[in-house]
């Protein structure tokens, strides 16, 4: 039995976002949601390492609080992890726009961030956050006002600190995307720019196979099997992190260039 929010992946993909489905997401939830009025933005306060270290906790919860803890997780590379299509324990007690049943009527988004000064928000993640929220609000037919920060929603006020960014500015950016005045999202080119007569190498990501994958695996020192799997992806992310690039595990033109010089 699937829950109502099965439209989430399509809406996010249509907004040209990177979307990853967590196994069993359609059936996951603390019961089903009610009518959706908006979204509540959170940050995970999770570890500082990795792309989405809090994912398992968001799915399962913790001993004293059953998961899922949010419908969506947002990785540091701006990838949306779709965790649940049902109701999640994310909002708790509070009120926003007159709605006090946050868990039932709001979609919860947990973005990976420690919430501390040691973890500045990556541009790619903030951009994805705003675009994803805008896409959801467009789908449910609401304005940027129906995007709340958890600390704005939570009662008694001061109960929650997240998210650690300025919500007013965030809503302004979301409103700009909603009104169409914002620039379209930047996508990774599918192939490198051609050099001379040789055509550029294609952008590779998990699931790819072939000689080029082997090239990457040799460069990164992982087992050379010719299939771009989760291990290779993790190695690419680490390589990208070491070179101050977006650690999305996708080998595009920039990563190819960095690999060439490595």
């Amino acid at each position, binding site marked *: 039995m699937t829950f109502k929010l099965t439209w989430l992946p399509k809406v996010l993909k249509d907004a040209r976002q990177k979307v990853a489905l967590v196994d069993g997401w359609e*059936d996951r939830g603390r019961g089903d949601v009610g009518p959706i009025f908006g979204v509540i933005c959170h940050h995970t306060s999770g570890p500082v390492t990795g*792309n989405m270290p809090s994912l398992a*906790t968001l799915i399962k919860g913790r001993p004293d609080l059953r998961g899922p803890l949010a419908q969506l997780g947002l990785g540091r590379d701006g990838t949306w992890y779709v965790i649940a299509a049902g109701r999640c324990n994310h909002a708790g007690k509070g009120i926003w726009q007159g709605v006090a049943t946050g868990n*039932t009527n709001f979609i919860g988004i947990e973005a990976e961030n420690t919430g501390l000064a040691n973890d500045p928000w990556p541009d790619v993640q903030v951009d994805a956050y705003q675009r994803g929220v805008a896409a959801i609000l467009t789908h449910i037919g609401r304005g940027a006002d129906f995007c709340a920060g*958890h600390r704005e929603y939570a009662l008694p006020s001061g109960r929650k600190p997240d998210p650690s960014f300025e919500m007013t500015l965030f809503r302004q950016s979301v409103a700009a995307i909603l009104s169409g005045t914002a620039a379209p999202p930047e996508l990774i080119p599918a192939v490198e720019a051609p050099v001379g007569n040789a055509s550029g190498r294609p952008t590779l*990501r998990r699931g790819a196979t072939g000689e080029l994958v082997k090239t990457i695996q040799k460069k990164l020192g992982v087992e050379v099997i010719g299939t771009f799997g*989760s291990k290779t*992806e993790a190695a690419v992310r680490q390589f990208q992190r070491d070179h101050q690039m977006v650690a999305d595990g996708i080998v*595009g033109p920039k990563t190819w260039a960095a690999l060439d010089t490595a």
Partner: protein
Amino acid sequence: MFGSDVLDVAVGLIFVYLLVSVLCSAIREGLEAWLKTRAAYLEHGIRELLHANDGNRSDAKGLVEQIYKHPLINGLFSGNYETARGKRPRLFSKGGDLPSYIPSKNFAMALMDLAARGPVDCAAAGPATPVISLDSIRSNVKNIPSPDVQRVLLTALDSAQGSLDRAQQNIEAWYDSGMDRVSGWYKRSTQWIIFMIGLIVAVGMNVNTLVIVDYLYVNDAARAAIVARAEKASANPTLPNQSFEQTKKELNELQLPIGWEGSNGSTNGPRWGKSSGTVWVTAVFGWLLTAFAASMGAPFWFDLLNKVMVIRSTVKPHEKSPEESSEDRQKKTVEGTGGTSPSITVQTTAPGAGTTTTPSIAGTPEDENLDGCDVSVEDVTSDEQLPAAEGGVQS
């Protein structure tokens, strides 16, 4: 659209008004038990009836005293009748020990007795006292000190066509017509007092009509929950007589934006303007509306709730035309809840919800108050364990 939402908001509002009215009535009853204002109104009404209020009619005043001292009426209350009363009772006049009600039969018989045999304290009862009959009343009518009342009595006798019972009925009818006025006064005063109580309750508990309407209109889940409760309540005819505690509990359980938790008034009404001036003007207006509604009385709102429920049951749009829902929601409606309104998912269901396989059971109130933002991550997900992503690359 119109049929469902607006009507449901109305049902919710009527239900809140009903509960507030019941609350105010309970307070009013407590106040009345202490003040006994109705007794003061009754005493005043009897004096009006016996023409004891026109200036210096000491004869009639004596009659009122005689009536209250008559055993048939004196038995209805403890203590003694004091003659010092004069003016029309005010809203919070105390009735003292006097009775709140005097049955018309007692009054008529007492008056006839006084006419036939004279005041209780001067004529000792005994075998020699005259029998009450039309003749004995007529011949001794001068026992009644007031000429106006003598006239009334004589009229009652004359139109009785020889029957003592008929004469008594005539007097009872005369008394009842006077009592209607007493009821009228009392009702009006009660309305005023309940309005004042309503205002105190509205401000004290921050029951703001405007905020509630706004909240119910926006919040589908809360609206569905309150309608479900109202439906249950409308089937319970004893509701208008519910106790104070019970009603207060019920009102709190509705989880509406009432009460002063926000303490600055704007928390419960974030959509009503920015400046605090506007907030206060609307707050005062909302409270006044609530107070007016409370002064209409619980029976009024109970009747209205039942009537609206009937209308609603003939409309009930979600069941037949889910045209406005998106496709996936429609499907869910049919599969999950068997075609009832899709938004009845909160607060009305029993605890124990939350297994991932039962979508029709949503949250419990406890569940609604859970969040997990400060969860310490023990089970760290490494990059290798992340699921594969799609999108983000030009195609």
